[in-house]
C-alpha cells in the first residue's frame, strides 16, 4: 500500500507490479494524462503544485477508504508535480482485488475523489502564451 508524490516521470509498470499478486484476479491501472484540447483551447503544458503534507494525508485517507469499502488486496497512488508536457502522466492509481468488479469500482472512486479533495493544483500553459490556474467552482 503506498501513496506518493514525485517530480519524476511515473513508472506505471512498477506501480501495477506493486499491487499484482496471486491473491488477485484483477489489477486495475488508471493513468491521468495531459490532454491538448480543453473547451476549444489548446494546452501546451501543465504545471502541477501541491501542499505536500496535506496531499499525502488526503491520499492516505483515500487509500484507507477504498480498502475499507471494497475487498481489495492493494492500492497504490502516485501524483507527479512540476512541468508536464502533452501526453505525460500526471497521476497513476493501481488497485488489485480477487474479482474485477471491485477493482473497477474502487479505481473510479479513487480518481473521482482524488480530484475533489487532494490539495494539488494545475496551471494551464495555453498556446497563446498565457497561463492560468485551474480552480473549479
Amino acid at each position, binding site marked *: 500500500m503506498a501513496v506518493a508524490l514525485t517530480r519524476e516521470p511515473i513508472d506505471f509498470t512498477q506501480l501495477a507490479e506493486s499491487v499484482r499478486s496471486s491473491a488477485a484476479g484483477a489489477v486495475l491501472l488508471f493513468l*491521468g494524462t495531459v490532454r491538448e484540447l480543453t473547451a476549444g483551447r489548446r494546452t501546451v503544458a501543465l504545471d*502541477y*503544485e*501541491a*501542499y505536500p*503534507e*496535506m*496531499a499525502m*494525508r488526503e491520499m492516505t485517507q483515500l487509500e484507507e477508504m477504498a480498502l475499507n469499502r471494497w475487498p481489495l488486496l492493494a492500492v497504490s497512488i502516485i*501524483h507527479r508535480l512540476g512541468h508536464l508536457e502533452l501526453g505525460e502522466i*500526471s*497521476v497513476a492509481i493501481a488497485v488489485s482485488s480477487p474479482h474485477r468488479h471491485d477493482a473497477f469500482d474502487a479505481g473510479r472512486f479513487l*480518481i473521482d475523489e*482524488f*480530484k*475533489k*479533495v*487532494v*490539495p*494539488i*493544483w*494545475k*496551471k494551464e500553459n495555453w498556446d497563446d502564451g498565457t497561463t492560468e*490556474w*485551474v*480552480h*473549479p*467552482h
Partner: protein
Amino acid sequence: MANEAVEEISTQQRIILLFAEARDRVGRDRVVLTIPDAQIPTVGQVRRLLIEQFPSLRDLGPRLLAAVDSRYAMNEDPVPANVDVAFFPPVSGG
C-alpha cells in the same frame, strides 16, 4: 510617577501558507498575520484578517478553502497556535 492607564493589547500571530492563485496574488508562499486579541481565532476570523491585509485576495476570499494542521477546516473551527494553517483555492489535481 504619574498614574497612567496602561492599555495592554494582547496580540498573537499565525503563519498562513498560501498556494496557487492565492500565492501568486500575494507574491509570497507564506504570510504572518497578527490576531488582535488573546482568544483563539476561528477560521472565519483569520480569513477576514487575511483579506483585510491582502486586498488582492478579496475576490478569491469566499472561495478559499482552509486547512488547519493539514485537515480541511470550516469557518467556525478554531485556529490554535503552532499548527500549520493554509488557505487555498479549489483544487485541480488528478
